[in-house]
């Protein structure tokens, strides 16, 4: 499979107390392949959203991307770009859609102008041509009566419609890579199903690589080819979807599975992970999960690297070297 | 802005806020402690030869036409002006908060009536009303003047508080209190009021500056604080006659007014920045 984008050792720092720095994203690496979806799974505080922002140099001040981080799109390291060349990547080769369609769309501009703005920013076309493209995009994302909808303002549309418009805006630049940061979390479950169908279809028809950021394991099961689980700024497990669900191997992943209520199957008491996710300035040394892990491994005071437990299946855990 | 009070450290976030806080503290200390070190502001040691002396080592701000030490008078004036401002603002804030909370929480007809009164009152220029009353009531005591300034200054605050209350009313903790059986009084004073303290504090700080200017203006017209009680406005008024030969008599009180109002405004700016949801 063709690799379109590679993230290597991405580290993002923020100022902590008394002049120290904390690293909410601490050495994240993965690849995105054409026509495939990678799901980045984690809870709040895992660093998943910040990772996405980092990929496009959108980290809010006072955070900064640490040297040594690489985000390579084809031949170009995006993190080395500035100004005009960076702008030519954003929207045109990598696009991003966000969680809350209520606040991601500009309320004072019509749908049409928000889409054509992107078209004009990246392509040299006439206004008529841009409008035609906008209408075609609305149709592609499944909005009925696209010509009428072009004239609408965001507040006149439902949540599901707005998210479709966001997807249309993202596609307007004809990107190779699409980052979707919790695109359905704010939507009802029936609408969520609609939006995920749209995204899947577009991924296939446009041959895009998709990075899907979510906390919902159900969405991951249905829509992702590969999964990376994040905890405390690091990827702790990485595997093809089927492998991850068949054999979740990192204790955190197992804990997540134990916490998820199921619609089918035996109805048992949920077994949640004890305690809370620690904040970046209070991460345990060595293995960051050790304070909540049911297993006490003698080597846990040393930070484990990603180790293989199966074909293409890695975990950041000493258990990979054999049971204790 | 949210209603939480700012953390002590965050008020000092910007250099201008730090400057404001420092300056206002200095002025307060000056007003409180100076009389201990300085000559009595009413003392007129040597009326003839000591009058209208330019600033010197003995009298850093010079002396006025009655040989009084200007520095001592400016310090005394600080106490008067700041006390007038503090009491009047406290009165105005209390009234404004009360009306604002009741209007915001009760809603409906009560709110409509109260806000129409406020709208009407805001349409009338405050200075005008005060001048009228001062002209009608000869020799109005200072206490009454402070009261009037307070009573004419709560309208804007009530709108501010009402707006906060309208927002807070829909917050979960207010619903929770009602669901627990809290009556309107408890909801308003235990839950709503403490959460409006942030914007209220900012408004109060700005109001202090306004009142200082207002009082100075009235005193300058001879209508505010009456001699021999020193006040900055009164001192500027007195210094008019000798402006060309002894400008320091008017300049220093004037500078004191500017410095105080400026530092109070800077402090208010710092408070406002500390309250903004940036660090929520």
């Amino acid at each position, binding site marked *: 499979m063709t690799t379109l984008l590679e993230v290597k050792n991405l580290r993002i720092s923020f100022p902590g107390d008394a002049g120290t720095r904390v690293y909410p994203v601490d050495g994240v690496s993965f690849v995105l392949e054409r026509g495939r979806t990678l799901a980045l799974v984690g809870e709040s505080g895992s660093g998943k959203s910040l990772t996405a922002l980092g990929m496009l140099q959108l980290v809010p001040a006072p955070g900064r991307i640490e040297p040594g981080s690489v985000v390579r799109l084809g031949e170009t390291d995006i993190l080395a770009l500035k100004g005009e060349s960076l702008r030519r990547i954003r929207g045109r080769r990598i696009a991003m859609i966000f969680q809350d369609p209520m606040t991601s769309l500009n309320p004072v501009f019509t749908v049409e102008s928000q889409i054509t703005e992107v078209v004009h920013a990246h392509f040299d076309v006439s206004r008529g041509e841009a409008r035609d493209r906008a209408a075609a995009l609305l149709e592609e994302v499944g909005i009925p009566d696209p010509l009428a909808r072009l004239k609408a303002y965001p507040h006149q549309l439902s949540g599901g419609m707005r998210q479709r418009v966001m997807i249309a805006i993202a596609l307007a630049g004809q990107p190779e890579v699409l980052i979707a940061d919790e695109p359905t979390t704010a939507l009802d479950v029936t609408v969520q199903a609609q939006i995920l*169908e749209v995204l899947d279809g577009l991924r296939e028809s446009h041959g895009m690589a998709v990075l899907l950021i979510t906390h919902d394991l*159900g969405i991951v*099961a*249905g829509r992702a080819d590969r999964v990376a689980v994040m905890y405390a700024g690091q990827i702790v497990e990485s595997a093809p979807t089927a492998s991850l669900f068949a054999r979740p191997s990192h204790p955190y992943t197992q804990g997540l599975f134990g916490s998820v209520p*199921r619609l089918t199957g035996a109805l048992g008491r949920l077994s949640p992970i004890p305690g809370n996710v620690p904040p970046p300035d209070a991460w345990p040394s060595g293995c960051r999960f050790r304070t909540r892990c049911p297993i006490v491994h003698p080597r846990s005071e040393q930070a484990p690297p990603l180790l293989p437990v199966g074909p293409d299946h890695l975990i950041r855990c000493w258990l990979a070297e054999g049971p204790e | 802005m949210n209603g939480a009070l700012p953390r002590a450290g965050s008020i000092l976030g910007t250099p201008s806020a730090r400057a404001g806080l420092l300056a206002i503290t200095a002025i307060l200390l000056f007003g409180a402690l100076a009389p201990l070190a300085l000559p009595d502001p009413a003392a007129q040691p040597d009326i003839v030869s000591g009058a209208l002396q330019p600033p010197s080592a003995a009298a850093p701000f010079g002396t006025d036409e009655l040989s009084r030490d200007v520095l001592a008078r400016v310090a005394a004036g600080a106490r008067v002006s700041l006390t007038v401002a503090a009491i009047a603002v406290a009165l105005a804030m209390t009234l404004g908060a009360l009306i604002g909370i009741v209007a915001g929480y009760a809603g409906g007809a009560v709110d409509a009536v109260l806000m129409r009164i406020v709208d009407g009152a805001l349409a009338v220029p405050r200075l005008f009303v005060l001048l009228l009353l001062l002209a009608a009531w000869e020799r109005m005591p200072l206490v009454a003047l402070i009261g009037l300034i307070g009573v004419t200054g709560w309208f804007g605050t009530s709108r501010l508080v009402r707006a906060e209350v309208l927002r807070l009313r829909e917050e*979960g903790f207010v619903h929770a209190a009602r669901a*627990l*059986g809290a009556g309107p009084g408890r909801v308003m004073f235990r839950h709503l009021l403490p959460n409006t303290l942030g914007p209220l504090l900012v408004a109060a700080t700005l109001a202090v500056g306004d009142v200082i200017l207002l009082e100075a203006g009235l005193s300058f017209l001879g209508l505010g604080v009456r001699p021999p009680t020193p006040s900055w406005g009164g001192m500027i008024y007195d210094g008019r006659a000798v402006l060309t030969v002894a400008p320091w008599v008017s300049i220093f009180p004037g500078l004191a007014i500017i410095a105080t109002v400026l530092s109070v405004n800077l402090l208010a700016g710092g408070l406002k920045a500390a309250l903004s949801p940036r660090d929520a």
Partner: protein
Amino acid sequence: MSAPLLMVRDLVKHYRSEGLFARKAPPVRAVDGVSFEVGRGETLALVGESGCGKSSVGRTIIRLQEPTSGEAIFDGEPVFQLAREPLRALRRRMQIIFQDPYSSLNPRMTVGDAVAEGIEIHRLAGSKAERNERVASLLEEVGLDASYARRYPHEFSGGQRQRIGIARALAVEPSFIVCDEPVSALDVSVQAQVLNLLRDLQERRGLSYLFIAHDLAVVRQIAQRVAVMYLGHIVETGPTEALLSDPRHPYTQALLSAVPEPDPSAQRERIVLTGDLPSPSNPPPGCRFHTRCFHPLRSERCRTEVPVLRPVHQTEAACHYAETPASPLAR
């Protein structure tokens, strides 16, 4: 079978535009004739998506809002007819916990004061010492350290704040709690902790819950019975397992089909609803779901006649053609 603890009949709640000069806009018909019962010690889940009216039901039955019409009988008392003092006394027995852990606690009150509020309002403690003791034991009961009483809400995580909210509701010793989406805003592992807590509390204290949610998998963990709402009506109700295994209303089927199941091998064809949710101020005539319904037997009758909840197989469904399953794709 003892009498139900709560009986709600034909509850209606309409919202009108406010203000003296509001245009004659049609009211939002959030709840338009809803009836159900909750037994002692049991949990009824009220499930639906945004705009279905479930939150309005929750708030109205404890009179945080006044109903437009209908009746609610709690332990024999007519909730909507109670005057101020009897209503305040009733508030001890019916409590509520909220969805948003970040706005449900007063940021200017300590945790201890927040939990003690009900104790103070109803004068349940004879002395300050007794009050503090009660607060400490409540905090421990919900899995928090008693020393947290001196701290402020902003020092705690979402899950911990929800626990504080639960302690606050328990302080007045209710027999019934409206749980308004209490875990929707929480992370997966925290959600599981709070769900377990709610279950344990129910067992230990004999509580009844009206559990409002949109996630059917969550509901399965805690509710014995479920009522599914759509646009202000209950469209199906029944025992949880029965409703999940053999739903008879097309909307329930679509809802179930849309829930993503964390099992790649269980991926199935999904029923994807067409169109948008109609506006609650202008609901479709007849069966409110007919504009998006995919039932093969859909007819004119659906457009003109409002279906009534009636027993069909293992549940009660409001559909003219509930005897025939709507879709082979249905669970």
